[in-house]
């Protein structure tokens, strides 16, 4: 592993200093030292740093993983996209295909881990991939993404300034933002008596007896525990303290009495009436209006996110895998999606998740009828990222402890 000169300021000494400060656990440090130890230049190799808003990371560049040169013509081959299902409007694909005279093919994955596994196996060569912020560091270190040549992506200027230079990838060297979201609580105003706003501690709605059997948490081992921590006033939702993990596990299990259910179909469970209260992603709340049965108006939907902004927040991004066959075309596609008109149409007509584009004014979204007035809380604002709590990567040991506690809850023990 050769280090780019720009990255040498993160030497091992500083890395150890940071990890001692509690940013990275010692065990993970040894894992990575072991990982890097095999290479011929040993200790000077790049090491993984766990990025967080308090520890912004400039991702390392590698000599053997260069970015594409400027001024190249886009390839004429088929653009192959690797994405979550339902996360891209087919019309956008058609529009791009027409404009560039190419074919666009989309393949779906169900979890980021599954996608990372496939991409790292080298068996597939997609041109565009949609990673999450907690995966960027490892994908870069494993040389699975190629650095972006931002000259091809002038539309990055349309993005909120803070996300043009985000903490997980300073200077947008490998990724550009795609969508933003928060995790709140969705509910049916026509079915429940007390909304989260009626509680001093809104998270307590999960324990409201009136919603027994109609209450869902997200089937996500990071998001669901985060709400249990927030209920207890713990804002470090990336805590690896065994006591905190035991606390969220206990809180989750106390919901068995409520016949708690888990699902990631929040965008249909609420409108179809399977759920009255559902831990929910903001994009699902906006998308839920398209799944309401006839005769039920959008005012039946509600979405709560902490008014002070101290809640779970995140953003997903777009990247170009290292082995992409059509890297230039891929860059153009990234730029195409950051175009305000395309980004808006993708959001408002299909996805429901919101691109962080400066020109998408929250008030206009409501005025245009894209977002019903009562779901205004589901609109993400740039300022939400000041106080919002992202789910950052855990250390390997921390991840194992989180997953085993989550598995215990999911087992119904």
């Amino acid at each position, binding site marked *: 592993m050769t280090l780019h000169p720009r990255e040498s300021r993160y030497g091992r000494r500083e890395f150890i200093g940071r990890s001692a400060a509690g940013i990275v656990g010692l065990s993970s440090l040894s894992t*990575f030292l*072991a990982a890097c130890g095999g290479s011929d230049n040993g200790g000077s190799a790049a090491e993984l740093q766990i990025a967080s808003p308090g520890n912004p990371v400039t991702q390392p560049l590698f000599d053997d993983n260069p970015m594409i040169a400027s001024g190249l013509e886009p390839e004429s081959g088929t653009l192959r996209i690797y994405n979550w299902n339902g996360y891209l409007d087919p019309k956008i694909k058609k529009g791009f295909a027409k404009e560039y005279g190419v074919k666009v093919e989309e393949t779906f994955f169900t979890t980021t881990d599954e996608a*990372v596994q496939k991409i790292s196996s080298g068996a597939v060569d997609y041109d565009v991939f949609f990673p999450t912020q907690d995966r960027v560091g490892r994908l870069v270190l494993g040389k699975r993404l190629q650095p972006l040549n931002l000259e091809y992506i002038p539309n990055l200027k349309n993005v909120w300034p803070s996300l043009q230079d985000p903490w997980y990838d300073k200077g947008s060297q490998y990724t550009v933002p795609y969508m933003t979201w928060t995790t709140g609580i969705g509910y049916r105003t026509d079915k429940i008596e007390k909304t989260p706003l009626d509680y001093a501690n809104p998270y307590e709605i999960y324990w409201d007896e009136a919603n027994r*059997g109609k209450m869902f948490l997200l089937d996500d081992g990071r998001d669901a525990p985060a709400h249990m921590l927030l209920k207890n006033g713990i804002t470090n939702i990336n805590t690896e303290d065994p006591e905190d993990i035991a606390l969220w596990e206990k809180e989750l299990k106390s919901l068995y009495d409520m*016949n708690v259910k888990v699902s990631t179909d929040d965008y249909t469970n609420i409108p179809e009436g399977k759920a009255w209260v559902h831990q929910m992603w903001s994009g699902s709340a906006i998308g839920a209006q398209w799944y309401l049965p006839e005769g039920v108006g959008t005012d039946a939907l509600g979405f709560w996110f902490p008014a002070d902004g101290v809640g779970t927040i995140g953003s997903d991004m777009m990247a170009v895998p290292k082995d992409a066959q059509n890297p230039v075309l891929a860059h153009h596609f990234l730029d195409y999606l950051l175009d305000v008109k395309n980004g808006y149409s993708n959001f408002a007509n299909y996805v429901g998740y919101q691109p962080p584009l400066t020109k998408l004014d929250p008030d206009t979204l409501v005025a245009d009828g894209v977002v019903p007035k009562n779901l205004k809380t589901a609109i993400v604002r740039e300022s939400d990222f000041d106080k919002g709590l992202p789910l950052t990567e855990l250390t390997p040991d921390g991840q194992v402890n989180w*997953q085993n506690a989550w598995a215990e809850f*999911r*087992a*119904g023990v």
Partner: protein
Amino acid sequence: MSEPGRRVGADGGRENRFWAGLALPGVVWLCVFFLLPFYVILCVALGSLDPILLTPAPEWNPLQWNTAAFEFVLDNLFTPGAAFETVFVRTFFYVLIATTLSLLIAYPVAYYVARYGGRWKGLLLVGLIAPFFISYLMRMLAWINLLQDDGWVNSVLIWVGILDAPRNWLDGRASSVILGLVYGYVPFMILPLYAFLDRIDRSLLEAARDLGASPFQAFRLVTLPLSTPAILAGVVIIALPMFGDYYTPDLLSGAPQTSLIGNQINLYIRGGQQVPVGAALVVVLMVFLTVLMGYYLFATARAQRRLGG
């Protein structure tokens, strides 16, 4: 099956090779699509992780195998109250109840079609095979529609007067999951039962009646023992996939208290850095099912012997 070899003399060796050659596609198929993938699962379970990407790194060399994942799984499986033990016991009982119910439903249906189908037999058979044309997932989704608050099940039960108000069948009940399993798998049980019952020589039953057996005695002493292999085959055919089922509880319940061993496997395989644990769980489940399968082979062989087959 050894008939051709027995029939010929000097030519036998060549003919034997010919018949053995016919097995080749099957053998190749098994190796490529069963043994090889199984070895991969084993190597993932006994392997490690890519240090950077934390993706599973299968260990192909048996000398380097790392048993940590198996130790974790077995420890968790034999600790009362631990996650794997709880789900495993739950899965076992769900499958046991669902299989028993399926048998109770499938046997009379198969018996009726085989014995009393008459000229309707063809039509009834089509009716039995029809569910195979609809995917399992679609049938479960239909089941959700039937069971939801304003679904037909509630409407009918209220109309008949059994219920006063709609009941939330989908609020995480074990019964919904078990009935869902029965509903989903019962066609797979009817068919082998029918095929076997249809072949039972009626003269055997007539002989039993001639010798003074009542219809029930004839059934108990002749039909039932004769159909034991079919019952076992039906049980195996539906119990094996039920053990690995995870979408039925996901769709019909979603509650952690009704999750099955398949859900835990799914949880560990789908994400995180404990894919070897998920793979080890798969292997342990397979060993358990192999034991059941072994009993099936043993029992059918014994039944054949007893029938003088």
